[in-house]
Structure formats: C-alpha cells, structure tokens
C-alpha cells in the first residue's frame, strides 16, 4: 500500500493531483498527500506543520483547513492505525514540554488553537456530509434530514463523529466569545475554561434528555432499512418467477403432447433457476467457464438433450479459448445429432499451461477411419480449428461404445512462449484468485 498505485504513478510528468492520501496518513493524510503532490519528503512537511502548530497554533489551523477542503484519493486504502500511536505520544510529549517551559499559553496562541478547534469540527461534519450521504439522509427521513445524519449508522461511528464535530465547533466558538468578552489577560484564561466547562455540562444534559428519543428513532430507522431490503429481494424473486417460471409452465401445458418440447422447456427453466440461485453471473464473452456453459445451454436448447457440464478453474476468454469453446460446441452438436443419447458429459479444465475440454457420450459411436469427407463438422470445425490455433483434437470412438472428443489448447504457442521467456518476459498465467469464482 505504501507504493503509489500505477494509476497514480503513470502521469509522472505533471505532478499528482493534490489529494489526501489515507493510506499513508497519521492523522488525516494531509501531509502525505501534500508530499506526494510537491514531491517533497513526508517527514519534512510533518515537521513543518508541527512547528507551525507551536507558533500560535497556525499549523493546526492550516492542517485542519487542508483536511476539511481536500478530497481523499479514492484509489488508496485506509490507514494503518498502529502508525498513529507513536505520533500522538510524541505530540503530547512535545506539547507538555512546551507548556512546562513556556508557562500557560499566551492569548494569541489560545485564540489560534480555538480557531483550529472550530475548523476541525467543521471539517468533521463536512466530511460526513458527502453528496450521496446527504441524499440517503433525506430519503430515510424526509421531514428531518438532519436527524438522518445524526442517526446514520452506515459507517461505524458516523454519529459519534457528527456529534463530536459539533461539540468541537461549539467549544471553539464559546471559547473565542468568552475570550473577547473578558479580555483581561490574567482572568481571560480562567474565564474561558469555566465557560467551556459550563457549556460541556449543558450539552451533556441536553444529550441525556434527548438520548431515548434518538435511540428510538435510530432503531426505527434500522428496522425500516431491513424491511426495505427484504422487500426488494422478495420483489426480485416474484418478478423472476412471474417472468419465467409461470411462462414456462404455461408453455409446458400447451405443448403437452410434445415430449421433446417439454424436455427442452423444463431443462431451460432448470438452468435459469440454477444460475439464478447458485452462481455469480460472469459474461460469456469474458470468462471461459461462462462461455462453455453458454455453448452447452445453446446445444441443450436446440437439440433437447442434457449436457452435464463440469468446469474446473477459469480464465479470461481470448482467441485460443474462444476456438476451443467453438470446437467443444461442435462436438456437443455432433453428439446430440448422431449419438442418439439423452445425456452428454462435458468436462473442461483450466490449467496453468493449457486448457482442455472433453466431450463424451455413451451413444452409438462410429468408426473414425470411415468419417465421410462430407462430414464437415468433425474435420473442419473441430480438428482443423484446433490445429489452426495451435491446439490438438483427438476423437475416440468405437461403434456401440460411445464417443469422446478430447480438445487440448496450450496457453501460448510453445515457440513464442520460449522466446518471451528467453527475453525475460512473464509467460501467461492464470490468476489464482480467479479460480473457482464461478462456483461461489
């Protein structure tokens, strides 16, 4: 995470946009983001902020303002929390030392820190109130959107942040007001402190009184959200059943005499339901397993047979995998047309260096030596296609003992693969994380 993502590093000519960098942050990622933007070391910026903070709190104000205004870099992850501890300890230590050596802070320093407090509180609230968040608040409780903001539990601690931010703003403002109403240098500090304490007690009292109401509204909001999710799911299921299952049942009743048609309809519906219930949907133009399943489904639909598809592993579709899928489809069509069986097995396996597909039936079989030259399917569409793309096909069949078509496609041309290896290139491989995804 500490290295910039390729997307961020690519336009190296012009400096990266000024964004906060949450991945490398200690507090808000302002220093890290600025450092990336300016190309300066992070530590220098951190020291600069800290030093400025000691001079009348200017650094703190600057930091808070930057933090409130700059958006986060969405490409980067969240912070490593453990980083924070030593920095906080260090800051506390230096602050304490400063206090001990320099005595209580002077009036201008105090004002600076109070302003920083206000900026910080505003920032907290500002960040909570992103555009889509605000939209959701007003949807959840149309009459009182601000309450939605308080009660939003979408992100852990969102309410706490909102309240905390408000508290910071109020404390800062009270402090500043108290200071200007009581400008006597020696009395000022005490007055501010006692004003703050009073304000805090008052706020706590109000919070205590409001707590039951807030809690009730909070649980109401949660219940409402859950109900909405359930309702959406139910509506989706109902729509699916209505669109497809009922339709299929009607069709089955109308074609009661036609066994083949009934078989086709029932199998098609079963397939749709299964994929709806159990599988994540991958696009047949992108993933090999989805492409194989689609080819099998098409053959099932056209010839009213059952294809038992088993796919192990997965990879992206390219020209070669496309060729093996097309050949497998042709083998399925041949089995459906000539083998005189109701079920055909298809097994496909993706390995690191090759993709293989086996299509097997227990049908009538034939003698491969006597394939009619006119049987274009086997020669052109299977053997020829596989050879053109650098793969191989083998057909095993005996009259009366069924047929098996074996298709093997290496991932890269062996010659080309060796050259690229020799040049130091990475040979193509499958990403292990993608394996088995289709079974999720």
């Amino acid at each position, binding site marked *: 995470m500490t290295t910039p993502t390729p997307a961020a590093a690519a336009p190296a000519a012009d400096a990266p946009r000024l964004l906060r960098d949450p991945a490398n942050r200690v507090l808000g990622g302002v220093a890290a983001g600025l450092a990336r933007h300016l190309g300066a070391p992070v530590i220098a910026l951190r020291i600069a902020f800290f030093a400025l903070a000691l001079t009348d709190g200017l650094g703190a104000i600057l930091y808070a303002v930057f933090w409130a205004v700059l958006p986060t870099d969405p490409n980067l992850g969240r912070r490593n929390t453990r980083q924070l501890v030593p920095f906080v300890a260090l800051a506390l230590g230096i602050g304490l030392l400063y206090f001990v050596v320099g005595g209580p802070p002077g009036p201008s320093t105090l004002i600076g820190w109070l302003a920083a407090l206000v900026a910080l509180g505003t920032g907290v609230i500002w960040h909570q109130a992103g555009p889509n968040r605000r939209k959701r608040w007003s949807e959840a409780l149309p009459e009182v959107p601000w309450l939605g903001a308080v009660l939003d539990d979408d992100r852990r601690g969102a309410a706490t942040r909102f309240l905390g931010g408000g508290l910071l703003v109020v404390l800062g403002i009270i402090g500043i007001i108290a200071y200007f109403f009581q400008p006597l240098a020696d009395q000022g500090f005490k007055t501010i402190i006692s004003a703050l304490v009073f304000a805090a007690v008052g706020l706590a009292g109000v919070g205590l009184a409001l707590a039951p109401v807030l809690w009730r509204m909070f649980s109401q909001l949660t219940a409402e959200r859950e109900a909405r999710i359930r309702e959406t799911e139910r509506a989706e299921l109902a729509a699916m059943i209505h669109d497809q299952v009922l339709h299929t049942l009607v069709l089955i009743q109308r074609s009661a005499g036609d066994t083949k048609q009934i078989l086709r309809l029932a199998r098609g519906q079963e397939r749709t339901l*299964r994929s709806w*219930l*159990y599988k994540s949907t991958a696009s047949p133009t992108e993933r090999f397993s989805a492409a194989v399943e689609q080819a099998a489904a098409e053959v099932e639909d056209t010839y009213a047979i*059952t294809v*038992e598809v*088993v*796919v*192990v*592993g997965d990879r992206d579709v390219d020209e070669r995998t496309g060729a093996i899928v097309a050949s497998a489809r042709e083998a399925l069509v041949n089995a459906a047309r000539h083998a005189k069986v109701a079920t055909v*097995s298809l*097994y496909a*396996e993706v390995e690191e260096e090759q993709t293989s597909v*086996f299509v*097997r039936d*227990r049908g009538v079989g034939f003698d491969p030596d006597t394939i009619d030259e006119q049987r274009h399917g086997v020669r052109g569409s299977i053997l020829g296609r596989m050879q053109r793309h650098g793969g191989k096909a083998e057909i095993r069949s005996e009259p009366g003992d069924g047929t*098996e078509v074996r298709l093997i496609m290496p991932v890269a041309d062996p010659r080309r693969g060796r050259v690229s290896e020799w040049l130091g290139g990475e040979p193509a491989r499958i990403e*292990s994380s993608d*394996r*088995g995804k289709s*079974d999720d």
Partner: protein
Amino acid sequence: MTEAVAVGAEAAAVRRLRVFLVDDHAMFRAGVRAELGAHVDVVGEASTVPEAVSRIASTEPDVVLLDVHMPDGGGRAVLENMRRTHPQVKFLALSVSDAAEDVIGLIRAGARGYVTKTISPDELAAAIRRVAEGDAVFSPRLAGFVLDAFAARPDAPLADPELDQLTNREREVLRLLARGYAYKEIAKELFISIKTVETHVSNVLRKLQMSNRYELSRWAADRRLV
C-alpha cells in the same frame, strides 16, 4: 476358511440391501421407492429431521438416502445426530442442488457420497451398493469441485501435506470421473483394477472430510440455503 469367505460373499450378494429414504417431498419419496423396488428393500421413510433420527435408529438400515434441503437443519442435522450413535449406517446424499457448499458440507458431515436427483434408477442402485460396501460415490460435478478445491495454489499453506494434497493418481481418477467415466472404464483407461479405483476414490473422500484446506472450510461454511 476359504469356504467360509465364499459362503459369506454369496450371502451378501443374495441379501437385499435395506435402504431408508429421508426427503420432505412425498412425491419424490414415492418415485424413488418405485424405482428402487426392483433392486433394494426400502425399509422406511421420513420427512423431517426428528422423524428421520428416531426411525433410522429403530430400523438400522444399511444405507440412508438423505435429502440435503429440509426444514430444521436439513440432511446435515440428521448426519450430525446419527454419526456417533450409529457409525455402521452409511449415508448417501441426494439433492437437486449442485452448489459446492451443499455438496462439500454434506460430505464433511460424514456422507459417503453425493448424487443429484436426476440420476437414473440403475445408477442410483449401483451407487447405493457401492456406499453399502464402504466405498465412496462421486458424481462428475463433485469430482470437479474436489479438483477445484485441491487445485495447486502456490500461496496456500499446507497444514498437513498428506491430507491437503491429492496424489497424481487420485487427480487422474477424479478427472476421469468428472469426464463421465464409470469405475470400470477408469480402470481400463489407467490399466488398474476396479478395486484400486475404489481405493483411490475412498482416499479422496477421506481427504475431503479431514483436510482443513481453506476452500473446503469456506464452502462448507457458507451454505446459503437450509
């Protein structure tokens, strides 16, 4: 001694297997009963988990055909209740589902095999016989899942190499199973005896039940339907 063995084998061949059906769909039970009548004795039926537990305990069948999806915990609950008290009863899971988490979950709970409800009556009878003899039954799809789950992954830590990996021979047998080969055909293809094929499949079943590979635990854990 040899005589006794021969007589015993003959008796086993003559004795019809006692089979118990657990499924919450009465229509399906009736269908299976009719289809299996020629091959085995169906000694009892149950439609709920508690019913199944008490009746299996009293009838002590050889093989229980177990539906995966039932109210109150499904086939898994029955398995977990019966396994310790009646280890001699063999379970064969039967389901319409092809989802990996269903299959793996049942096998890890102790089922000796898994077939889908679309299986033909003859094949079902053969599967029951195989399970009764202590062997395992893998549908092509289950074989595919196992290959997928045990796929060599460079980053996967192996707690127990003996349990967490398949041998090359086991892999070959599973591939042929996934390709729709019968045990006899596998034996012929690999030039080994049917008994050896059965041994390989039983070993794979043991690994499937005992291994702690991440994929297996994950599949077994997130069954979405009960």
